[in-house]
């Protein structure tokens, strides 16, 4: 049971000290966000949201990130399951490689992707045979977002699968379900909540990406790249409404997703 923090008198110096530090942290995070919010007129924000090129950039951000999340779900669920259920030689290496996109600077990630998927890159040349190009196309945005955000999904799926009691899978097998039936009707539904959380993080990380996308596919414009170009061209005051709109829209969608997730029935591990 967590104790209610409102009855503050009950707590000693230790808890109060931790509360104070937490408030400091919170201020550091929240002040920049609120600060910029109060510098703009709501009407200007409203107009900005419905300016064609701003709305288009936001849509591109969301849509490309959604596609990259779908790709990550399709490929990340099997890997997450393998990592959760099996021991194999080189498992730690695979684990580290999954973490790598989080560790390297995103500008560097962009360089790597450009060298591979760009017009001179070997995958870029390979796909150009099928008429698919990544340089300055939506596909490039999707690939760049996928590269930097898929670790969130893979780790989310792995943790979710690790929390599924292996005995539940064994029980399903003895009750006549094949491996794939067990996975689809037992394992995946139980893990779905954790995987959904991973997908939200993956999607949000995709939207927030700038460096890798900017280098591989700076057009079509996505939100973060648009903000950068506007800042370069017209300065802080011109870019501010766009930045705020980007924050607000992302925040609203993120909160909505969290609410959907909270409403789905909690599935706790029976142990």
């Amino acid at each position, binding site marked *: 049971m967590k104790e209610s923090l409102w009855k503050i008198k009950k707590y000693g110096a230790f808890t109060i000290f931790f509360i104070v530090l937490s408030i400091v942290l919170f201020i550091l995070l929240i002040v920049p966000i609120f600060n910029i919010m109060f510098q703009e007129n709501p009407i200007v924000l409203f107009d900005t949201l419905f300016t064609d090129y701003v709305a288009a950039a936001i849509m591109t951000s969301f849509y490309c990130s959604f596609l990259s999340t779908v790709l990550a779900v399709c490929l990340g669920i099997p890997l997450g399951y393998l990592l959760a259920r099996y021991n194999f030689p080189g498992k730690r290496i695979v684990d580290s490689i999954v973490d790598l996109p989080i560790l390297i600077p995103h500008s560097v990630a962009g360089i790597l992707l450009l060298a591979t998927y760009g017009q001179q890159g070997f995958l870029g040349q390979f796909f150009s045979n099928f008429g698919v190009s990544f340089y300055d196309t939506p596909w490039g945005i999707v690939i760049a977002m996928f590269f930097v955000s898929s670790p969130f999904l893979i780790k989310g799926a792995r943790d979710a699968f690790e929390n599924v009691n292996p005995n539940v899978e*064994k*029980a399903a097998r003895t*009750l*006549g379900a*094949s491996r794939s039936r067990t996975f689809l009707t*037992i394992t995946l539904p139980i893990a779905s909540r954790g995987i959904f959380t991973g997908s939200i993080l993956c999607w949000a990380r995709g939207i927030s990406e700038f460096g890798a996308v900017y280098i591989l596919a700076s057009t079509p414009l996505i939100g973060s790249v648009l903000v950068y170009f506007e800042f370069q061209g017209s300065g802080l005051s011109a870019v501010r409404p766009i930045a705020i709109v980007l924050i607000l829209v992302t925040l609203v969608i993120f909160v909505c997703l969290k609410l959907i997730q909270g409403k789905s029935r909690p*599935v706790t*591990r*029976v*142990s």
Partner: protein
Amino acid sequence: MLVLEHINKAWGEFQITDIDLEIRESEFFIFLGPSGAGKTLLLEMIAGIHYPDSGRILYKGIDITHLPPEKRKVGFVFQDYALFPHKRVWQNIEFGLNPQKIPRTEKLKLVEEMMNQIGINSLAKRYPNTLSGGEQQRVALARALIIKPEIFLLDEPLSALDHNMRLKLREELLKIQKKLQITTIYVTHDRLEAITLADRIAIINKGKIVQIGTPKEIFRAPKDEFVAQFTGYDNFFDGIAKYDPQTKLATVNCGKFEIQVANSKEGKVKAFIRPEDVAVSLTPPKSSIRNVLPGKIIEVQDQGPIIKLKVELAQNQEMYALITHQSFLDLNLNLNSKVFIAIKAASVQIL
């Protein structure tokens, strides 16, 4: 009916070695052993969840060694119940019928009947995480039994329950098993469970079968030191035995005292005595009892209805005795009380 032939299986650092076993039709068979003995792994091999490295498993003469679990028709009940947390109780029970081609109305009827039989109708629409341990285990039983399994496998199904629920479910389980006449293999580390449930017991230690027999054989004639200690022979002494053909008794010299035993062994032996076979009194009992030894109570463990006494016979020679709480009070016993212990010659096991 179910035959295990020379089963070997390495599992990490652990090894199951040369398991050879036949389980008979309708038998209640128990794997009894300490935790980490390999009982669960063995049970899971019978279920097909793991395959042995070598050896064969035959069911009614057919080799099923590498048959996947979904083709074996085994009902498996887990210690942690392993209910599907995202399904309601009735859906949990229905799950085993889904791969079978049964019309939906028929399926629901079967589920209903099963819930009636186990007494869990009122739980039908609940989710597992809202149920008590006993309720969850009942659902797990129903879920396993609905597929009409050929073999019923239970892995410490009662050990996560509280004492009263354990006794209650143990009785129900036995009733169900006898009624359905279903071949059952049950894993436990609890020797009381084994005595009350089993037709036959296999004692398992370190991945090997140490002894197979009826409860009586196992608990009254342990084959080795491990079985003796594991089945509750808390008192054991090294000694030298000498057989007297006239009395047909052997005398075991344990150093500081001697005990007479109904056995013809000679030479170096180990003598084992169950604490419940040791009687305690204030004066030497006037009976034909062979072994009466004086001692002093040096420890009193209150175990509720019974009391376990540690009686010192001589320096570093101690004997455990169980007496009822009532006789403990009647005899007015206490720490350091001088007492006599009495043991029948037939109660001493010699190995």
